[in-house]
């Protein structure tokens, strides 16, 4: 309870800093929290906002689906075959820390402008953390499980669905949490550069017309959605890890 109050206090401190910055920098640079909230409410009520919202979250949905299925498959294959895992892991890690934005022009040249380029760009952001976490999860499964599976003469499919996947689920959710954040980032960056639709485009468009309240309202809405999804995943993550421990 006290912790919740303290967290609330922290939010109030952030709001106070925001208001202070608004007084310091003026209306042209930073809209006040109240103005931003008003504009956010107006956006939510308007018809122009929702197509952009749907565009971004449809792209996020497809990208996340590709990232999870692809990352899961890569992670499982590499995790079950020891040598492949050893070969691939440093490559995955260095891909993870690469500024993937430099590859965006390549993706635009391959997929053309539009939805598919955004989905592809989001997916390459998300697929690597999911693969790394899955690989780690499969590798740390206790060897006795595999021996038991061999004694019981389980087929590979039974081994994967009966042992590997359930044992890997907690780590998978951790990977999904990181993957979700990065995929959203990828989709938004994709929309901020050479795009005509989506929330990232709305932000860039707002700066073009120096419409600071709209820009901040879109960012605020995005942040709220992202934090809610991430908090839900974090909650699930902690529950699963506790149960596994």
């Amino acid at each position, binding site marked *: 309870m006290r912790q919740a109050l303290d967290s609330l206090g922290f939010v109030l401190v952030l709001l106070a800093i925001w208001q202070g910055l608004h007084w310091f920098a003026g209306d042209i640079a930073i809209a006040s929290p109240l103005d931003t909230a008003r504009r956010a409410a107006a956006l939510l009520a308007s018809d122009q906002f929702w197509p952009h919202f749907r565009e971004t979250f449809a792209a996020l949905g497809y990208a996340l689906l590709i990232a999870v299925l692809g990352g899961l498959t890569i992670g499982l294959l590499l995790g079950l075959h020891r040598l492949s895992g050893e*070969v691939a892991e440093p490559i995955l890690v260095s891909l993870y820390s690469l500024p993937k934005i*430099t590859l965006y022009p390549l993706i635009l040249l391959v997929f053309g402008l539009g939805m598919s380029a955004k989905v592809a760009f989001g997916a390459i952001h998300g697929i690597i953390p999911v693969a790394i976490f899955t690989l780690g999860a499969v590798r740390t499964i206790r060897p006795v499980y595999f021996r038991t599976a061999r004694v019981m003469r389980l087929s590979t499919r039974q081994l994967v669905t009966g042992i590997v996947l359930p044992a890997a689920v907690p780590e998978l959710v951790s990977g999904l949490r990181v993957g979700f954040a990065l995929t959203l980032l990828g989709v938004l960056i994709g929309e901020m550069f050479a795009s005509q639709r989506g929330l990232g485009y709305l932000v860039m468009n707002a700066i073009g017309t120096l419409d600071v309240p709209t820009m901040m309202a879109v960012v605020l809405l995005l942040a709220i959605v992202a934090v809610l999804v991430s908090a839900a995943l974090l909650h699930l993550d902690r529950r699963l890890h506790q149960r596994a421990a």
Partner: protein
Amino acid sequence: MKRATWIRTLVIVGFVLLLEALCRWGAIGRMTMIPPSAMAEHLWKLLQEGRYNGDIVQTLRNVLAAFVLAVVGGFVLGSLLHAWPRARRAVDPFLATYYAIPFFAFYPLLVVIFGLNAAPVILIGFLFGVVAMILNTLNGLDRIPPVLVKTARIAGLGPLRTALLVKLPSAAPQLFTGIKLAIAYSFIGVIAAEFIMSTSGLGYSIAYAFNNFDNRTMYALMLFIIVLVTVVNAFFHVWERRIMARRGL
């Protein structure tokens, strides 16, 4: 060398050769991608001409500034939070969900506030890196064995010497993880910011070349960034391994 290292080298070389072959045979169109050898050749020419030296220096300077700010700021904030548990519990939910916020969307806002110069670019790089450093500082300080701190007290060490001689070395592995992430995130933040909106730097040069259909320059600079970042990250990775090995981890 270990067997896995050999195979890895072969896989990477094979991949580059495959790309080269696909581009040369026309399976990948000229307008989409140029062969890796052509990228390297053009990059060499650009570096010799020095046409992009200014942009390279600027990007590296921004990355360095963001990195130093993130490491120092993250370490100080992390230490403060560690010393003040109540504040730490209050901000904990925010630290945990921080990376979910696509705060890259704040970048245009920073441009409005600071103008189109290096400040918003460095700030975005800093924002990307600082929380990784805070989290790892907290993690490292949490893992200091209490017995070491007690021993320091018995030996009569003051707070400063305890921090320098006992706590810092003991938390070093986690701090190093934070530093490693901070450098990677600084690169990502700075180059992405330059790419989206700026007037100079490597990220900007790539976006500019893309918009002008100058594929050769674009791919040459992409190759430069990929090689540079991989080398820097690998350097930190090897360094970390050394530290870990010395501690028998």
